[in-house]
């Protein structure tokens, strides 16, 4: 088994939050008969937006189902804000889950769907009415709320399920592919809502196939493949730890040969190619910080003029490619 890259990017957050504010997986494994769901998962997730990325069947939904008690771990234990799903009366006041199951109780309007389960929680009529209206407003479905869910489009069904999962104002919201079926406008709106909820101090655990959107909204990412956590942390931190994949940087400048000479003297530089037009170079380095230090020194001590500096592979797509092995669907 490969070592898990655990980047303490959320270190500052983790240091300032207590176990009562974390989602904790302790050596959690889940097997479906002989089939592996997830294996030996150890995670501590701080508030903010945490995205789960990995190919289909990698174990993302299993992790989410374990987090929300829909399935029980074969081994280990899961605590959310120090609560266990075995005590649902307390646990689910804190946790909301918008699962991927696109199904609804028969015959309900969007409003009745959200309202009915708030009553099941035990909220009084007036409170349930107010909370339902608020949740539906948050997802932008007020006008369609009185229509039967059976007549909704896929995007509307996605949004009403989102409303149902946040209606009781949980502290932890788990969202399995919440952007599926939404048009671009609704996706942008959903991401804005997620950001606002995270800024209020909530936990949002989101799985998504759309890497550029994950990149845009996430505070940290958990990479999962074949049931194993491959890495977790902020994308940049995870990227820096991938030593077998030196970071690729393009520098456009007026003296690429001079810069190349300086770079070759550094042990962390793996490769340098001067562009054909001799107005830039392509660099591979194992240590980004040292590279930028050197670049600064060269600029200060010489008459080198730099037009642009750009990293080629330090985004989520590249990290995903290196860790998981192939681009995600839809990318």
């Amino acid at each position: 088994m490969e070592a898990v890259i655990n980047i303490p990017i959320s270190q500052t957050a983790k240091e300032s939050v207590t176990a009562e504010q974390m989602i904790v997986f302790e050596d959690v494994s889940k097997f479906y008969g002989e089939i592996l769901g997830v294996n030996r998962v150890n995670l501590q997730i701080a508030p903010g937006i945490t995205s789960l990325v990995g190919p289909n069947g990698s174990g993302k939904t299993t992790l989410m189902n374990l987090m929300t008690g829909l399935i029980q771990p074969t081994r280990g234990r899961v605590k959310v804000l120090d609560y266990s799903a075995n005590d649902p009366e307390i646990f689910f006041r804190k946790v909301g889950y918008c699962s991927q199951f696109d199904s609804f109780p028969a015959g309900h309007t969007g409003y009745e769907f959200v309202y009915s389960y708030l009553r099941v929680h035990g909220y009084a009529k007036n409170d349930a009415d107010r909370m339902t209206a608020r949740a539906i407003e948050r997802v932008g479905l007020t006008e369609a709320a009185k229509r039967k869910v059976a007549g909704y489009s896929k995007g509307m069904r996605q949004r009403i399920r989102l409303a149902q999962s946040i209606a009781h104002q949980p502290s932890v919201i788990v969202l399995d592919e919440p952007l599926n079926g939404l048009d671009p406008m609704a996706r942008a709106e959903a991401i804005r809502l997620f950001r606002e909820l995270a800024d209020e101090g909530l936990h949002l655990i989101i799985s998504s196939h759309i890497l550029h959107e994950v990149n845009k909204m996430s505070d940290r990412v958990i990479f999962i493949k074949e049931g194993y956590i491959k890495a977790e942390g902020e994308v940049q931190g995870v990227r820096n730890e991938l030593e077998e994949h030196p970071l690729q940087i393009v520098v456009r400048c007026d003296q690429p040969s001079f810069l190349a000479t300086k770079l070759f003297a550094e042990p962390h530089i793996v490769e340098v190619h001067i562009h054909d037009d001799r107005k830039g170079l392509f660099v591979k380095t194992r240590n980004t910080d040292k590279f930028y230090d050197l670049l600064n020194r060269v600029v200060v001590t010489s008459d080198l003029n730099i037009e642009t500096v750009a990293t080629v592979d330090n985004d989520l797509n590249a990290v995903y490619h290196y860790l998981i092995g192939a681009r995600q669907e839809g990318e």
Partner: protein
Amino acid sequence: MNAVAIEAPTLGSGWSLWRRQIAGILRLEIKKNFLSKRALPMYLLAAIPVVIMMMLALFDRGMRRGVRTNFAEAMIVFSNLHEGLILRTVIFFGCAWIFMNLFRGEVVDKSLHYYFLSAVKREVLVVGKYLSGLIASCTLFLLTTAGALFFLYLPRGVQANLDYIFNGPGWAQITDYLGITILACVGYGALFMVIGLFFRNPIIPALFVYGWEWLNFLLPPMLKKISIIHYLHSLVPVPVNEGPLAIIGEPTPQWIAITGMLIVTAIVLFLASMRIRRMEIHYGGE
């Protein structure tokens, strides 16, 4: 989409919370299962004995004459109809449909997770769902029994019926039949809810139970007691002749029959609670 933080109202705890949660479950279940088109076959099933009795009362001269001249014999005919058609068929299959679907139907519809993700103890969920089934089945099958009795009494005329009900055995018989109907719903309901929870395909065990209940008259006395129909049979006000092949057993005293049924129901519900506590959501495997 916009976000405005508001404080969630407090829910409280204990009996007051559980009562509100059960009321919420009842509201949802009744609307979902009993006030929708999918309940139509159940209503049709429940109407069969009433329609039969209505046809006899309105169109069968022999039956009308028999009811007017020899009501005791008419009651025996009714007692056979009640046990053979209402208890063993209508209530049996009606309860099977209602109670097996309480959980199994939600698994098939892939909507059980909404309950499991609510802040409700799973034991409270079992009680809420069971009560919703009980309310629906009792309402429906009490109407069936009452409707059948109404058409039995109809040919006698108002005055004769009032005399029979208030100055004769009529009132006791009516309450007995209605009480037996409720007990049947209580017993079969609990049994079928558990079958729906423990078996992926509950039809086969339900058919086994159906056969067992029908063959109850052939069973030795000890085995007779492992059935619901035996206790219900012990409570009928007008005895039913089970035929020449029947192995006659000592009828169970009324108080034991009722208490026993309620105790067995409580045990079965406890088993259901244990099962539901450990239940996981795996719709894909259903």
